[in-house]
């Protein structure tokens, strides 16, 4: 049976990409996760020296600058933001690379407890509140999935069930957006449906691209799946930009999946592999 997770492992191994990660502090758990991941990527640490890894010195005042400089220099194939400040990093990246702030988006790839894998929009609270932002994110994910030879089945989520539409103008907006977007992607030939508040039904139906009602719900969904379940598999990554940048929660203690993602997603257009 085709397994996207296996493909990610295969790709990462095959690419063994040059990646860097920003770390100002490293617990034993972080060090251990990097050691486990080192057979999938050539890892450089930006920040704190860790025995066994290449190192670029940086401190809390300049880590974002060093990260942005390195990824834009193209000396590495991918970057994991790590412990650098999200907003400082994204602001600097936008400025130096010439992106609008709205272009720098965060998406996710998750495997749930039932071994279903799916891509998600809106990892950041402020993303995905408008139709424009949702189209941008969904289009970027479709590109990513095409690169991995996966056919998207899109689910739009809302804040209201169909029976509750009309009671609250604010919540209704998410419904109207979902209805509009279903038509929009339907016309483009995609399998797409408004699953209202029921992500569980969307996943049962085999949806593999989940568009949250807003970034606030997306972030909390991701956080819950990442931290309150056992052995989670997830990769957050930036979309909307040219560089291969992996995102993470700052409190994360295990970077294995992030290294795997950074290596697997490096130069995806050059990859040639087939579904089994």
């Amino acid at each position, binding site marked *: 049976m085709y397994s996207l997770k296996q493909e990610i492992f295969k790709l990462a191994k095959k690419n063994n990409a040059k990646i860097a990660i920003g770390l100002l502090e490293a617990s034993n758990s972080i060090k251990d996760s990097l050691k486990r991941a080192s057979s999938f990527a050539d890892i450089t640490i930006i920040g704190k020296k860790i025995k066994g890894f290449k190192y670029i010195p940086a401190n809390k005042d300049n880590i974002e600058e060093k990260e942005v400089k390195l990824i834009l220099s193209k000396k590495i194939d991918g970057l994991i933001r790590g412990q650098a*400040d999200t*907003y400082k990093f994204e602001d600097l990246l936008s400025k130096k690379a010439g992106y609008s702030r709205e272009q720098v988006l965060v998406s996710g790839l998750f495997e*749930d*407890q*039932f071994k279903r894998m799916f891509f998600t929009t809106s990892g950041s*609270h*402020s993303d995905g*509140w408008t139709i424009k932002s949702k189209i941008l994110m969904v289009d970027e994910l479709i590109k990513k999935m095409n690169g991995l030879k996966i056919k998207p089945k899109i689910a739009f989520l809302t*804040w*209201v069930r169909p*029976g*509750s539409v009309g*009671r*609250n103008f*604010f*919540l209704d907006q998410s419904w109207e957006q979902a209805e509009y977007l279903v038509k929009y992607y339907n016309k483009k030939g995609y399998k797409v449906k408004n699953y209202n*508040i*029921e*992500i*569980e*039904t969307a*996943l049962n139906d085999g949806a593999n691209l989940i568009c*949250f*009602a*807003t970034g*606030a*719900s997306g*972030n*909390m*969904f*991701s*956080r*819950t*799946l*990442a*931290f*309150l*379940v*056992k052995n989670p598999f997830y990769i957050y990554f930036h979309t909307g930009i040219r560089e291969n940048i992996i995102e993470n*929660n700052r*409190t994360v203690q295990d970077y294995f999946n992030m290294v795997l993602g950074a290596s697997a997603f490096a130069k995806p257009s050059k990859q040639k592999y087939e579904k089994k």
Partner: protein
Amino acid sequence: MKKNNLFQKVVKSKLKLGKPKVGFGLARPDKEILNSLRKSKKYADIILVGSKSIEKVVGFKKIITKNPEKLLPELLVKGEFNGIVRGTIDDFKTFEAYQKLVGKNKTKKMIELALLEDAFGRQFFLSEGSNPLGWKLEEKIKNCEGIIKFIKKIGIKPKIGVITGVRHNTYKKRKSIKTGVIGILNKTYEDAEDIVKYFRKKKVAIKNYTIELDTAIKDNCNVIIPPNGMVGNQIFRALCLVGGGKTLIVSRANLPHPYEDNSRSEKDFESHVKWLKAWINGMK
């Protein structure tokens, strides 16, 4: 990882106190739900209330009616049931019927609270799980007060984690923005700070964890106040319907009668019935 078995702590002493009569709203027969109810019979006499479609269900006492949403709360108020589980019949209609019967004044202090368990056995009450609820500061304070009162009554000392849509540093940088998406997110932070101030004055253990739900749980918070019902609903769905966590109870508390609610997507009702029994017995 430290387990936090609130459920066991609360129900243990009260389960031996007798077998109550519990009404369960069943919209249509469902194999999984009926199996879980069969297992739950050891805790209560379960009477199914539903339309003609449940007529052929065997092994349970049944009350067939054209309008289960009206009859279930009616039998509760009349004292025919000691408590109810709403089950798979309509949420809004059932509660509306109950409100009519007891009077709106008696439901004003009602709070919704769910007890969830993550994959590491850590249990916590979630104050808002319904999308339209919990968007206003007054509402959040009212709910928080209700939860504190309720869980103290059942023997649990509250430790509250308030969640926002923005981190401390990001809020500081953008706090002048009052409109649009950033304005909405900033408001969640300001509400959280007000909630913390309000309850610290009342000597309650409470902290604004910003977006870090995970840190709040790690710190053994036993009550989580999400920024609004929409985020609360998302936490519930991610954890219990996708992430392998459990919903142990979903109660409409501080009402005149024991009224157990649930999500329409749930299939296992054993912990709901077990809890309802302890709740009913605790009121004796």
